[in-house]
């Protein structure tokens, strides 16, 4: 596609429910990143994929968070048993060679 696509753009959920956030990177970009950005804060690294492999999962905040990537394209970030502190914008970025990251517009997650 022309850019990194994320869906949904907004998600409102109830505390305790599971959510799935999707990222469609730019075609041919082997590197894919997930970040969390709380209101007025910086970019918190969550996970990095090189191809389908995630060599570093240490940024995931808890075991309620998981991510996968299939076919070197689409990635899904899943948050189980959501908590209010999970409310944030979740940004996905992709890159060819880590020299320039292209970001999607993000998913605004609100946990009530």
């Amino acid at each position: 596609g022309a850019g990194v696509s994320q869906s949904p753009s907004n998600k409102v959920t109830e505390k305790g429910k599971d959510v799935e956030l999707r990222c469609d990177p730019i075609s041919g970009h082997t590197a894919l990143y997930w970040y969390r950005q709380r209101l007025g804060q910086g970019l918190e690294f969550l996970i990095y994929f090189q191809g389908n492999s995630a060599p570093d999962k240490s940024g995931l905040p808890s075991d309620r968070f998981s991510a996968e990537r299939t076919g070197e394209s689409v990635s899904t970030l899943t948050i189980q048993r959501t908590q209010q502190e999970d409310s944030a914008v979740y940004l996905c970025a992709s890159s060819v060679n880590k020299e320039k990251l292209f970001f999607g517009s993000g998913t605004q997650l609100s946990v009530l």
Partner: protein
Amino acid sequence: QQPVQSPQAVILREGEDAVINCSSSKALYSVHWYRQKHGEAPVFLMILLKGGEQKGHDKISASFNEKKQQSSLYLTASQLSYSGTYFCGTEDSGTYKYIFGTGTRLKVLA
């Protein structure tokens, strides 16, 4: 440990200059700069790959001091469109993480 940026926030009048600093406690092998406008995703500005490198784009330029583990972003003759939050970014050495600095909020007033 994420790079620390200074200042945290700055307000300018159109036409004024600003300098944003990015300082790391770990070795920096490359530095990227991004700008994020309110409610939007970060957008890449430039990358510096080696110490001593300086780059410029329009009236925005940057330098990279590898020895001091620092980079600076220079905005000259600022325009209203420069408003936003600026982040430096780098690969966290020894890990696979790509991390961002603490951010600098810049507001340009007419």
